[in-house]
């Protein structure tokens, strides 16, 4: 007898449909899985057998062959356990074929017959074209995100069998417990003083401009960066679904609703390897931190402590918004359109700057600043040096403006960008800048002076104009970009080149 059960496997952050074909025939008893299974997939033989026997079923003393079609695609993960078990039950006549018609199955089996969750439920379910999908109970919310299927849950093989045979109703999906109050996002009102830092994160949030904060320890770089996600608007349909797929594929906990709506904020430690940041891995390809922060913020604290090779690997994804990871077995591309926020000290001792009592040898400072290569530094539209706030504003100063009004301005500015046909001003195409970001004569004079004196390259001018556009949008000036906006854009882009350039 033969049975074919629809299921899916992960390839990058996308699911690929897999037809699990089970053939049971007379012959020497045995159980083989073919069709490019990886190690965890091949081990499912033992799990399926134990799970079925623990559920009170008899193991057919026959020759069992499982084929995972299409056989050219490599399959990984334990999510194929459940379809294999169901296929086996149908093929050995424990279950009638009609009972599973139009049903897709995803789930890992425990030796006791329980059905367990697997990572990547969202993309896996999205890959299925059946009317009904059966998933483990705690994956109900995730599976429902896709919205095209009737989602059924089953906690064990016994429960599943009873429901499929019609002996018992389908188990109810788990009732979501009282949703814990989400931790209130840190608010900008906590930041006192720091006029420049506040302006910089507001501009970064509104225009999607990458931001580099430099300053001594205790200047508030991390504090500012952590308040950036609170300024970003909630994710819209497409972005939310993509972010959910990525988080699901990486096995990162999803919010109770199952859909990632808050812009993600990822802050990898500087010990992270290139693979952890970019994505990949030998056995099981996993999206990296840059993909997990897709449509959100990637915060790299102590950026100069990251190895230079890791940092330079960021350059291509920053430009393209996707990262293609090539391995001998497969090439996958992960979405990676993130807002990069870097924070760094000016030198290893943290107290560098002209005329500051820095204790570092010159060579050590140069080595430190060289970690940020010129091309990477160039991708930061906003480069800001923040100072320690003075005692007065920390102790007695009035609280700063709260996040809510700033977020409103950001949302309004992003809306203006959408009317121009881009997601944010950082994506404004250079040839259309004259139309989309016209300048007043005063603003043009400032830029011309910088160009003439060689302090700005042609590419730098485009970047300045995009940032100036964002600043003008935030100020509520929908019209041309004025001198003040260009000047502020220039001041927010400090030359953080290696300290000892020419005299």
């Amino acid at each position, binding site marked *: 007898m033969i049975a074919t059960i629809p299921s899916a496997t992960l390839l990058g952050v996308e699911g690929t449909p897999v037809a699990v074909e089970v053939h049971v025939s007379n012959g020497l008893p045995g159980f083989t899985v073919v069709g490019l299974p990886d190690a965890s997939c091949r081990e499912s033989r033992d799990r399926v057998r134990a799970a079925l026997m623990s559920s009170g079923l008899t193991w057919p003393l026959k020759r069992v062959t499982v084929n995972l079609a299409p056989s050219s695609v490599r399959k990984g993960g334990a999510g194929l356990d459940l379809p294999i078990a169901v296929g086996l039950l149908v093929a050995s006549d424990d279950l009638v074929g009609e009972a599973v018609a139009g049903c897709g199955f995803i789930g890992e089996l425990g030796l006791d017959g329980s059905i367990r969750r697997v990572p990547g439920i969202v993309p896996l379910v999205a890959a299925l074209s059946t009317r009904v999908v059966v998933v483990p109970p705690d994956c109900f919310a995730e599976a429902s995100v896709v919205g095209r299927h009737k989602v059924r849950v089953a906690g064990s093989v016994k429960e599943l069998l009873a429901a499929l045979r019609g002996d018992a109703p389908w188990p109810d999906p788990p009732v979501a417990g009282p949703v814990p109050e989400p931790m209130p996002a840190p608010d900008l009102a906590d930041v006192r003083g720091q006029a420049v830092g506040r302006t910089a994160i507001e501009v970064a949030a509104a225009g999607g401009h990458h931001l580099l904060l430099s300053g001594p320890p205790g200047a508030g770089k991390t504090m500012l960066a952590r308040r950036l996600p609170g300024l970003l608007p909630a994710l819209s349909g497409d972005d939310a679904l993509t972010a959910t797929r990525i988080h699901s594929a990486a096995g990162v906990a999803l919010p109770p609703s199952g859909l990632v709506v808050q812009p993600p904020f990822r802050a990898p430690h500087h010990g992270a390897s290139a693979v952890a940041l970019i994505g990949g891995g030998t056995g099981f390809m996993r999206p990296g931190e840059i993909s997990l922060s897709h449509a959100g913020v990637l915060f790299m604290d102590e950026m100069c402590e990251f190895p230079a090779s890791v940092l330079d690997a960021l350059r291509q994804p920053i430009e393209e918004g996707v990262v293609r990871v090539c391995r001998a077995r497969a090439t996958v591309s992960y979405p990676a359109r993130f807002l990069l926020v870097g924070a760094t000290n000016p030198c290893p001792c943290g107290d560098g700057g*002209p005329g500051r009592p820095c204790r570092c040898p010159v060579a050590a400072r140069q080595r430190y600043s060289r970690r940020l290569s010129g091309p990477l530094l160039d991708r930061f539209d906003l480069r800001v040096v923040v100072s320690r706030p003075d005692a007065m504003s920390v102790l007695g100063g009035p609280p700063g403006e709260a996040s809510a009004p700033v977020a409103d301005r950001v949302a309004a500015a992003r809306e203006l960008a959408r009317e121009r046909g881009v997601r944010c001003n950082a994506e404004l195409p250079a040839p259309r800048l004259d139309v989309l970001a016209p300048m007043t004569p005063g603003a043009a004079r400032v830029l011309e002076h910088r160009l003439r004196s060689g302090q700005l390259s042609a590419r730098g001018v485009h970047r300045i104009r995009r940032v100036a556009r964002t600043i003008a949008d935030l100020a509520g000036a929908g019209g041309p970009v004025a001198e003040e906006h260009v000047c502020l854009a220039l001041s927010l882009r400090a030359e953080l080149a290696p300290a000892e350039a020419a005299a």
Partner: protein
Amino acid sequence: MSEVSVPPEGWAAALAGLPAMGPARLRAVLATWAPVAAWAHMLAGTACSRPAVALACRPDPAGLAAHWRVAARRTSIVDVWEAHHRRGITVSLPGGPGYPTELHLDTEPPAVLFSRGDPAALEGRRVAIVGSRRCTRYGRDVAYELGRDLAAAGVRVVSGLALGVDGAAHRGALAAGAAPPVAVVGSGLDVVYPPAHSALWEQVAGAGLLLSEAPLGARPEPWRFPVRNRVIAALAEVVVVVESSDKGGSRHTVEAAMARDRLVMAVPGSVRSPVSSYTNGLLADGCHPVRDALDVLVALGLSSAGGGAPVDRREAPGQEEAPVFDALGWEPATFDDLCARTGRSPGQVSVGLARLQAGGWVAERAGWWERITT
């Protein structure tokens, strides 16, 4: 070429290139024997047979002699000599041609001097300009102007080719295109240090003279720099310190200069600037202040006029940017500092900075804004 045709300078260069051969040991060896004879003692392993040499080779003279014996046997005198020739490097011994008289008469003369460039560059009045590698914009500007104006007046500017003040002084001297610059470096003449100054290094060698006490291939080890500083002090008639903190290397130059009765002058700096603490201390101790090149020329007896205020041709800052300019003062500050000091919005401050920059009043480096003098 055979060993016989190599002059004594070649043998001395080979001696200087032996491992663990510092200036003091080399001086002891060459005070005891002529270079050729000294080399024979090296080969025989009897280098420390004389008390004077053994004293310089403490704590382990016998071990060092054995070490030198092994190294000397591996060295070909002809190769060493030709390596110098190939690179256009002259080797001079005290009293020989190309060896400056001031150094010959010095209390600690270099036993061997390596030079590259025009030896005539030393003929004339000489002023050393030294200071911190970690200088401010102000220090760099002053060093550049002093170098330029002194060189234009025909004075040889002596410095150390280091980052910061030294490099700025050399650049200034080169910009004048008059008197040739002189650089005394701490590493071997084939080891460019700091690498960032490789172009400047070549320019100085092309227009003036590069001097070193270190043999070819010598790394820029930290101990070589104080030793090098004494050569700068010995060569100069006046030592001008532009900017230096209390822990800076300029201290060694000043102490060496005072021990040799050279005139030490200092450029005043802000009393709050850590890199001016040493120079301001020198002034408090009675050193002559340097306001511009004229002060130095007066000290050299080349000009009798007092230093006058330079004419500033820049347009005064406008009413709008004046508060930002006042808030900046004379010390470097970040954009953030300026916003906090003026209490204005970043947008207003940035407009002020842009206008001041266009007017040539301020400059930005690595996120720090500084006031410019000329």
